[in-house]
């Protein structure tokens, strides 16, 4: 869509002329998708040659035409396997020029609303390509279809004035005033045949004003936004969501819902990786492989839907993520009623409330360079080293299989990537090696699900995929001259190892370095070689903790752990323990061990990684000993799919963990909704 240069007078077209126009558009080599009436209602459908838009003016088609800019399933990568070798390539770009003909304003606005998201730093070529080839001929409404229409409440003009490339305004006598809004609109109109008589501008303006007036404003979005913030923790969400069946109907039918999943499918040696529609209503959407779910019930999921549309998205992209089409009310099998809920929260709310969740700033953003058109295409990496850290944790060292790609590649401390086992899928791991040790990257992962299991089957010499680096980083330069306290639990040492290596490689920049690391059992401590090295160094103060020491038969043996080199600390009063620097291995949960280490908050930055429970308790300890929340850093590990701020999966409130995280300070996390 190109912007209009000058306003041109609207011309009048008869109903029959619209049919001829569609035929001309098809003859021009365009795909025309238009409302078609059938026995059971109106649908947007591709017109075959000779087909007519028989559903024009018959209310709103059942489903939105979302698939024309965001297909329900769309290949983003082609995979081919030959023996142990894999090639990856981009799918052919869809070259079809599509005209959405007779589309309603509430549907036509959607691509425009989504454009900032799909072009936010990273460009999604699939969406952008389709949108560039999409022309919109908008059919203005003259009245609300039913009580579920609330376009005027969210700033959608039902008359379609100025929306899309051409606006058609139905006139009383059954003809239509056609007005081009863009150069593309002019080109389309030129195909409509002999120019009709010009429409009377005053009458046209009146008709359009009447249309606007015919759809009542049902709530004030600013008030709704304030109300959503104010009632975030309200019981309301549990109550209203009791009917919800957790299907994806509301999101899949919505013209602007855009969350997606990435999955791959092999058939023989050929495969595709594809985007599939996904929805925040599904319990799986945010489910971690560990079983932890940041949004554990339908109440929190429904709350997310409303907050995302009317609060988070507007705060981020300055548009409401809803055009007021009403489909989610009409099509919900359970009679859920977003409009009524918005009216309830908006009522009496103070509209003046500003953004309630300021954007994080502590972890500096890393400038994005999109090296290839298709940001979903991974680099092919060759595995050059495999190390087993524990029975279920493995480290892989990777080098670029196509060495020219290594040249432009760099990453920073704390960033992560998406690693693929070709044919199985992608998993998110941090880059566990330090940028100061270049020529390779390493990842360390615990076998958890499908992808990690497949990655474990790979060996030295095999190919796998990597895309990244993604996310923000640790502000290591801001820490110069400070004491550093690293605290990690279990498999969370890898994200930390990158920054520890960096600081050790720039040892002179920092003062004392203390590392507290704990795991369930001695067997679960990863990077044993490095731990031994850090233990030996006199410029590193390392403390190791285990939860318990198992006997050969797996039974708890904490009482005897002392005898085996892991004496317990004073569990009841960890702070009272006097630690002997000669005895650095103790039986203690990480938070207790931290308390026993008695770190001083003065001039100290604490970095904390681990499972949610550990983080939670350790934060309390750090708070107790006086650390300011701004000096405590951690990384979040929300479920991720795209890694580049498109798929919606990693969101916590308005924050895209994949882009604005994963590094946050405790102060920032405290301002996020409790959906971690």
């Amino acid at each position, binding site marked *: 869509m190109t912007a209009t240069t000058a306003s041109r007078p609207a011309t009048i077209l008869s109903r029959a002329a619209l049919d001829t126009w569609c035929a001309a558009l098809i003859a021009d080599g365009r795909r025309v998708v238009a409302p078609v009436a059938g*026995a*059971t209602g109106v649908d947007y459908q591709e017109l075959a040659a000779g087909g007519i838009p028989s559903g024009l003016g018959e209310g709103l088609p059942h489903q939105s035409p979302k698939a024309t800019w965001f297909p329900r399933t769309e290949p983003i990568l082609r995979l081919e396997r030959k023996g142990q070798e894999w090639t990856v390539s981009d799918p052919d770009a869809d070259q079809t020029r599509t005209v959405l003909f007779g589309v309603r304003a509430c549907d036509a606005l959607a691509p425009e609303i989504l454009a900032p998201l799909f072009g936010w730093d990273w460009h999604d070529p699939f969406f952008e390509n389709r949108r560039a080839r999409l022309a919109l001929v908008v059919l203005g409404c003259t009245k609300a279809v039913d009580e579920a229409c609330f376009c005027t409440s969210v700033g959608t003009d039902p008359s379609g004035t100025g929306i899309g490339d051409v606006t058609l305004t139905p006139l009383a006598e059954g003809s239509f005033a056609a007005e081009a809004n863009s150069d593309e609109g002019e080109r389309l109109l030129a195909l409509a045949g002999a120019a009709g008589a010009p429409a009377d501008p005053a009458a046209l303006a009146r008709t359009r004003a009447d249309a606007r007036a015919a759809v009542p404003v049902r709530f004030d979005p600013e008030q709704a936004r304030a109300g959503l913030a104010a009632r975030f923790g309200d019981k309301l969400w549990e109550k209203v969501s009791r009917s919800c069946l957790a299907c994806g109907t509301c999101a899949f039918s919505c013209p602007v819902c855009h969350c997606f*999943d990435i999955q791959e499918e092999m058939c023989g040696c050929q495969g595709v990786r594809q985007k599939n529609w996904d929805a925040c209503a599904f319990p799986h959407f945010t489910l971690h492989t560990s079983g932890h779910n940041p949004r554990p019930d339908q109440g929190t999921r429904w709350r997310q839907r409303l907050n995302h549309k009317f609060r988070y998205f507007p705060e981020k992209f300055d548009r409401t993520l809803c055009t007021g089409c009403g489909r989610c*009310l009409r099509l919900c099998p*359970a009679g859920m009623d977003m409009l*009524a809920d918005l009216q309830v929260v908006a009522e009496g709310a103070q509209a003046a409330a500003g953004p309630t969740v300021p954007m994080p700033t502590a972890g500096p953003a890393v400038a994005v360079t999109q090296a290839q058109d298709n940001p979903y295409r991974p680099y092919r990496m060759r595995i050059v080293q495999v190390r087993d850290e524990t029975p279920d944790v493995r480290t892989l060292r990777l080098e670029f299989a196509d060495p020219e790609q290594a040249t432009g590649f760099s990453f920073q401390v704390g960033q992560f990537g998406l690693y693929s086992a070709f044919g199985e899928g992608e998993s998110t791991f941090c880059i566990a090696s330090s940028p100061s040790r270049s020529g390779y990257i390493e990842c360390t992962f615990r076998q958890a699900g499908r992808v990690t299991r497949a990655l474990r089957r790979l060996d030295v010499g095999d190919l796998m995929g990597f895309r990244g680096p993604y996310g923000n980083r640790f502000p290591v330069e801001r820490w110069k001259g400070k004491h550093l306290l690293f605290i990690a639990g279990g498999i969370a040492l890898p994200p930390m190892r990158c920054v520890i290596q960096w600081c050790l490689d720039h040892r002179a920049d920092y003062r004392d370095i203390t590392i507290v690391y704990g795991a369930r059992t001695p067997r679960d401590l990863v990077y044993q070689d490095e731990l031994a090295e850090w233990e030996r160094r006199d410029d590193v103060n390392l403390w190791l903790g285990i939860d318990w020491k198992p006997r050969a038969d797996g039974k708890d043996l904490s009482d005897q752990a002392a005898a085996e080199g892991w004496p317990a600390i004073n569990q009841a009063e960890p702070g009272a323990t006097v630690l002997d620097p000669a005895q650095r291995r103790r039986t203690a949960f990480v938070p207790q061990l931290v308390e026993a280490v008695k770190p001083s908050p003065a001039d100290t930055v604490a970095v904390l990684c681990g499972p949610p429970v550990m983080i939670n308790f350790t934060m309390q300890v750090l708070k107790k000993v006086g650390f300011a929340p701004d000096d405590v850093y951690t990384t979040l590990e929300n479920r991720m799919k795209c890694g580049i701020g498109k798929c919606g999966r990693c969101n916590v409130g308005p924050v895209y963990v994949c882009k604005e995280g994963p590094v946050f300070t405790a102060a920032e996390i405290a301002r996020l909704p409790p959906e971690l």
Partner: protein
Amino acid sequence: MTVAAPAAADAAASANTVFEPRLVAFVCKWCTYAGADLAGTSRMLYPPNVRVIKLPCTGRIDIAFIIRAFSQGADGVIVSGCHPGDCHYSAGNFRARRRWTLFRDLLDILGFDLRRFQCAWISAAEGTKWAATIRDFTEEMRALGPYTAMRQLAGERGAPVAPRAAVWHGRPARREPEPSADPATRARSEALAGAIAAALTDKSIAAAVGWTLSPTLRRPRPLWITAPEEADRLGLPGDSDGNLARLLKHPQLTVRPLGMVVRHAEMQALNVLRQESQVAEQDVVLFAVARDGRFLGRLDWDAAVAALAADAEGRVNGFSPEVEAEVSRVLALPSAERWDYWRTQFARCIKCYACRNSCPMCGCEVCLADKNQPQWFPTAADGPGNFAWHVIRAFHLAGRCVGCGACQAACPAGVAVNLLGAALARSAAGHFGHHAGASHQDLPLQAAFRTDDRESFIK
């Protein structure tokens, strides 16, 4: 062991112009696999076209395997195991036999060429039979040519290509406001609400599920309540609303006993769930409402079944006459047209899973469609993904689907979701005299078997 070397078959295929079919055999390890082994060690000659997949028992042959084989390019699939009576797990093959009967019917309903799916009993001693069966099957498939229908599906990820089935009506229409202006209707809904409030008050139920209206569109909305003062929000159900028995699976609604507003549809669903020990009599307290809106009172199980039986009138196996008529029409089509009918129906599906999530029977804690280790379903809403979803769902509901139409009313894309259910209900009735939900005392169709179940189709 001389199981076919697939590479050899492929090589043969490219060297010769004659078509070499790719066949998959799912066999039990005790009988047929041993039989195939015997054929190999005895150096019997049979074509190398078949890839043999060994399973512990025919009972373990999930139909998802068979669909997966076809969607991955098989031209024919054969399933085989121990003769009836010889199963090493005593009855695995009896259950498999029932499933094969239903699955063959399902394939036939879909317009699938049944010659491409064969069943056999081959014992460990029947190496000759194995060799002959494979020889015949290969010959037959060679003559039939490549199986292309499923491969064509693979390219389909586009817009719907056919009108919605006429039996799809979408969501129920806007209702009259509640409380109703009509005194008779109001009295009924007050009686219902009063009975539920009383049960919540005397704590004979911990929560109640019923119906209310959504505020904006006044459409039916399931609701559960825990306090007596909320009871006046409950209204009378309509005829074509969803099925409240679904709420027994609501993850947050775990308290029992649960009061439930039941119509004929819920009662049938409850019967099936009780057959399967998914609900016990004491878990639910029933507030029965007849199709015409009369509140029949708080009834015990058998009384509710009896009181609501009249509402089944005109329905076949629970399905509406309209659905039955459409099924009859479709089944009368030639098989190629049937295939096109379903293909274009499935093509509408956007995989929102509203059909599953509204279904009282689809209550698996983790649906097969949501499992990814292994991933039996292609995840995409494209040709193969939709085919697998609809076929496997229909099969999991064979003998269980009570025809309430909740799925169809829920589907936002206008797929006639419950037609396959209606077609399979005919098989269940025809072959096994089974009517889903007729009584809580029946045995679940796919878990039960008779030693004399039909098997004329098994070689």
